[in-house]
């Protein structure tokens, strides 16, 4: 274990705990506005200060972790399931199935810059948490599909697969019981990096006004609200704390992903 992945795991653990226990951790009501208390700097009463309507930024950052975690987990799980199924079919059957899936379908989804496709989908579907999650899943699955296809292509040539076939095992049994369990390891790395990507994309779309609508304490929304000039002038902390939260979370998942990659691939370990 490298030092960076330990830092990563620590931050991820804190992030998950904060998200789960948000109602007990947050000291104040996240929606309670109080115009006489606006733009207050960090203090013992308001650890991260207050924003332009006097809401407690610490409580909002804490609840923001919930939104990020929810989006991240759903997007990663759904994309990984869909991607793994399609990738496994492409790798296992090869031939024209593979030529259609990896030669055409994967290329189409890779041809769009991911964020642009998500923006386009949400722009037409309308903003909202569920639509944002749907859009992120639509752009997310192809990374897993490509990975699993390559893995399945490799594993299906191994002797134990030939042996299983010689013993009379069917396609589905071979694919699910013999190939996938041996092909799935790199998926963990991809999932960890995918969490970082999903958290970042959710914040980006919410920042653009295409994600979770404003009163909700999404980190992207908080940054969007904090960046007008009068707020920047009076309360830069309203920008800095949600910004730090995003950066630390993304950084931590990237550290964990890199650490896992090194751990799972002994060839990289000694560098």
């Amino acid at each position: 274990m490298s030092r960076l992945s330990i830092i990563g795991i620590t931050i991820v653990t804190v992030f998950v705990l904060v998200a789960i226990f948000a109602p007990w951790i947050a000291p104040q009501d996240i929606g309670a506005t109080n115009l006489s208390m606006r733009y207050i700097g960090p203090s013992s009463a308001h650890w991260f200060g207050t924003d332009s309507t006097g809401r407690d930024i610490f409580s909002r950052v804490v609840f923001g972790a919930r939104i990020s975690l929810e989006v991240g987990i759903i997007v990663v799980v759904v994309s990984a399931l869909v991607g793994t199924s399609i990738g496994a079919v492409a790798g296992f059957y090869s031939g024209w199935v593979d030529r259609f899936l990896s030669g055409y379908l994967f290329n189409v989804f890779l041809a769009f810059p991911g964020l642009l496709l998500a923006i386009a989908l949400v722009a037409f579907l309308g903003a909202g948490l569920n639509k944002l999650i749907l859009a992120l899943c639509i752009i997310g699955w192809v990374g897993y599909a490509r990975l699993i296809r390559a893995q399945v292509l490799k594993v299906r040539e191994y002797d134990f697969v030939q042996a299983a076939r010689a013993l009379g095992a069917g396609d589905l049994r071979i694919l699910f019981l013999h190939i996938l369990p041996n092909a799935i390891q790199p998926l963990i790395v991809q999932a960890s990096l995918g969490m970082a990507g999903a958290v970042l994309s959710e914040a980006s779309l919410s920042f653009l006004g295409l994600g979770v609508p404003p009163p909700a304490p999404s980190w992207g929304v908080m940054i969007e609200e904090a960046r007008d000039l009068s707020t920047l002038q009076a309360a830069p902390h309203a920008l800095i704390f949600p910004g730090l939260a995003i950066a630390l979370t993304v950084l931590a998942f990237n550290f964990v992903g890199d650490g896992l990659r090194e751990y799972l691939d002994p060839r990289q370990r000694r560098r």
Partner: protein
Amino acid sequence: MRHKLLGLLRRAGILILVVWTVVSLVTILIELVPGDPAAAVLGDQATAEQLAQFRAKHGLDRPPFFFGFPREANGQRHPRWYGFDNRYADYWVAILHGDLGSSFRTDRPVLELILERYPATIELAIAAMLIAIGIAIPLGVVAGKNRGTWLDNGLSVIALVGISLPSFVIGPMLVYLFAVKLGWVAPSGRFDWSDIILPAFTLGAALSAILTRMVRSSVIEELNEGYVRTARAKGLSERTVVYKHVLKNGLIPVVTVLGLQLGVLLAGAIITEKIFGWPGLGLLLVEDGIGKRDFSVVQGCVLAISTTYIIANTLTDMIYRWLDPRIRVS
């Protein structure tokens, strides 16, 4: 030779298929709008007559595709064939004539709007790239030469932070520091030459971090090559060895990443342009298109950005194959 030609044809075929699908997806995006797009654009106040007029003007009263499952008077759905009299075919005919339709709001041709904003986005993307290269090459070389020292570790951490900090965090922080606190530059707009500095830096920050890591590992790899020993043995200064020999060879993979990143920059420019009010394609998409529910503008922008992205990636791929024969063979 024949093999090469076939490979080229196959790649061109896939490219055409991909572009066709991307355009098709964009044209039918409007079907995703919940309810009636005309009502979404005109609002609740619009009369039935206004709605009908709007639909007729933008072809929204016509069938969307060659076939469909329209709800009939008795409430049931049956498949129906419309033939070539549909919006999808119209869209293709128009595109091939260089017509992207007209804005739902201002009636101006969408192509005109896009061409007006395109140069600003390209300018921003190129400036971001130059800044990223300017930062990454010296830092990457320093880190690679001093591998494993505190200097290298420090630079690596900075690069990681640069990758993890999203532009919508860096951008407003730069605005706070340089526009609000120091007052050196304007917080937004595109009027003075200095206005490009902050947006370009914001857009280029993540790329410079990625490039720094690449230059570093490239330099480390090349420093182990035999020609470096030869160069040192014949008495060249370390400076000449690194900057004249190592860097020249080490930059090949970096060039490819640059090409691929041009497309990423174009997409990333959407957020940067919004932060700084930079009047490019991204701002057109977000403010005039999505903000005002002007769906034809959104379609046009998505089309323009994704086509540029696809072309940039294809060109990079071709240049890379041409540069590095090892890939050409495999």
